[in-house]
């Protein structure tokens, strides 16, 4: 690499890594904060909503049909026979969350059911009453369980056909054909690319305006422009070093998310494989991320070079954040399915999100990913050229 580029890179690194406060606020803090917020605050909130596994809901039953009795008794519930108690006096118990549920069968439920004929419209079907309390989570859960028992009972008595019935032949058959990898991939592909871009963007925001608009504001870049150094070397040196710093800052945040993911997702993640990607998947992701950071840094650098102060630069880059949001959010809602047409991969930022979505969901085409990386590098090179031109422009560098 050109000597001057290396000199600039070395200086930028010395500036950044020599400043403990800066390293802390841009690299360590974001990841740490995200980890703490996600795993303790969000995780904590979720825990309070998630019920105690050992809790046995209290269920009152009136006139329990004999055929159903064993089914109810098999449940992890405290079943109380309340046939002789008045319904009106049980309701307050549910309201006050003293008990979870009341299931009231009509008298002669078994015979009424047997006599019921679906084609005879003069007969009413026997009606089971279930009282619950939506503000009580345990009550809601108990209701769901009871309802499913009743409807499967209803299915068995008027059996016309079965769905996925367990017979000797099918006992070992897995009917949900999605693998654990697929499920995990779907979660990650929907969420992670967008989050990654946002984190990388904040990483870039933390370093580029300070290094370019800041140097301009403080008059230190003029000192560099007096030297015979080629302006494009200055541009390259800045973009390469800032990209690296932004990358580790963005990856710190990302690490914070990954590490807090198990806590954040709670039991949904239990038993999920964590190591579902191959080395080449990771390499592709790394390539996409690297090329994306180059694009982001070079764009923010151009805006920063145009601005007169760091403050102005930070204001001017806000619309860019908005654009990234607009480009990124549809991909998240899209539910983890990447675009297949190659033309989408010519749009910077959008291409990165799509390419990452593809890799994360195991449905990428190598050509699209390669196009993304190549296109990003072309954009970054073009933007570097513009930046070099700006460094050469007295109107921009010495504006008063």
């Amino acid at each position: 690499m050109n000597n001057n580029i290396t000199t600039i890179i070395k200086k930028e690194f010395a500036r950044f890594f020599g400043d403990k406060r800066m390293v802390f606020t841009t690299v360590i803090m974001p990841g740490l904060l995200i980890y703490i917020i996600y795993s303790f605050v969000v995780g904590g909130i979720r825990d309070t909503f998630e019920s105690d596994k050992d809790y046995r809901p209290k269920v009152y039953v009136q006139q329990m049909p004999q055929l159903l009795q064993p089914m109810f008794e098999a449940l992890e519930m405290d079943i109380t026979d309340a046939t002789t108690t008045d319904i009106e006096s049980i309701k307050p118990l549910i309201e006050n969350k003293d008990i979870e549920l009341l299931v009231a069968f009509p008298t002669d439920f078994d015979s009424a059911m047997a006599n019921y004929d679906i084609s005879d419209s003069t007969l009413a079907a026997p009606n089971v009453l279930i009282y619950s309390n939506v503000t009580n989570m345990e009550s809601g859960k108990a209701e769901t369980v009871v309802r499913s028992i009743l409807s499967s009972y209803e299915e068995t008595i008027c059996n016309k056909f079965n769905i996925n019935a367990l017979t000797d032949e099918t006992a070992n058959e897995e009917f949900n054909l999605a693998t654990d990898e697929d499920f995990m991939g779907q979660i990650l592909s929907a969420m992670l690319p967008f989050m990654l871009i946002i984190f990388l963007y904040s990483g870039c925001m933390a370093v580029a305006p300070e290094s370019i608009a800041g140097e301009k504001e403080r008059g230190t870049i003029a000192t560099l422009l007096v030297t015979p150094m080629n302006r494009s070397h200055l541009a390259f040196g800045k973009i390469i070093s800032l990209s690296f710093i932004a990358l580790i800052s963005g990856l710190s945040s990302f690490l914070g998310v990954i590490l807090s993911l198990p806590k954040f997702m709670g039991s949904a993640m239990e038993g999920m494989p964590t190591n579902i990607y191959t080395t080449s998947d990771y390499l592709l992701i790394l390539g996409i991320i690297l090329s994306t950071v180059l694009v982001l840094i070079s764009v923010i650098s151009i805006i920063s070079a145009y601005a007169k102060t760091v403050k102005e630069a930070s204001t001017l880059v806000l619309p860019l954040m908005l654009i990234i949001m607009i480009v990124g959010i549809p991909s998240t809602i899209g539910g983890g399915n990447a675009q297949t047409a190659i033309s989408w991969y010519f749009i910077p930022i959008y291409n990165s999100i799509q390419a990452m979505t593809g890799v994360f969901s195991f449905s990428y085409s190598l050509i699209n990913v390669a196009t993304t990386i190549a296109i990003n590098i072309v954009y970054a090179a073009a933007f570097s050229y513009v930046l070099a031109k700006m460094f050469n422009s007295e109107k921009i560098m010495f504006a008063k």
Partner: protein
Amino acid sequence: METILVAEGLKKTFSLSRKQQKLEKTNSKTKVAVDNLSFSAYKGEIFGLLGPNGAGKTTTLRMIASLIRPDQGDVVVDGFSVVKDPQKVRERIGFLTSELKLEDFFTPNYLFDFFSELYGIDPTTRNERKQKLFSRFGIEKFAEVKVANLSTGMKQKVSLAISLVHDPDIIIFDEPTNGLDVLTAKTVTDYLLELRNMGKSIILSTHIFSLVEKVCDRVGVVIDGRMAACDTLEQIRNGKSLEDRFFDIYSEMKGGNDE
């Protein structure tokens, strides 16, 4: 005498922002900062651009240093045109002005090495030069102190040392003693004479008559962006004090050119 620098018909017009228009109390959208200015400087001499505030001295020096481009005219520095060959010019000059700042975060020692690298100076030469310059200006004790914590005078001395990392033959100083106490100012003016004795050519700008009288071989008096007079110090003074002569030239110029 060998000319080392020729400025020929330099012109620079700035467009004024609304804020600047108010500041300059004018309705005109442009300001002619330098207007058809020409002069030559000779090898081994100290050439002074003398003029009041806003005369266009800094603008002229920035054009010579190739930081900004002249709208018209050219400067040939040691055979290279600032318009066609700015990089070659930059290699040959040392430029010092108060608008060129050093990064607060770094130490004089680090910055000296950094700029040496940008000029492609090998480490042995660099260390020799650094040792000489740092001891000449008393920077040694502060070599590892961050620029942010240096006094104004020490900052100025460090800037001076760093503008000389590549041992240029042509040195351009904008107001070299501005904002310095008498002791520091003397260190700087003494050093200017030392540089001349080493055979360097120096172009400086100032509005301080005593500085010109003390160090300059030749003077150009700049008023309203134009060269009002340009000659040896002796010729310009013409037996009077420089200050008296300046007022003569000034009223002559203003009287003859009133719009």
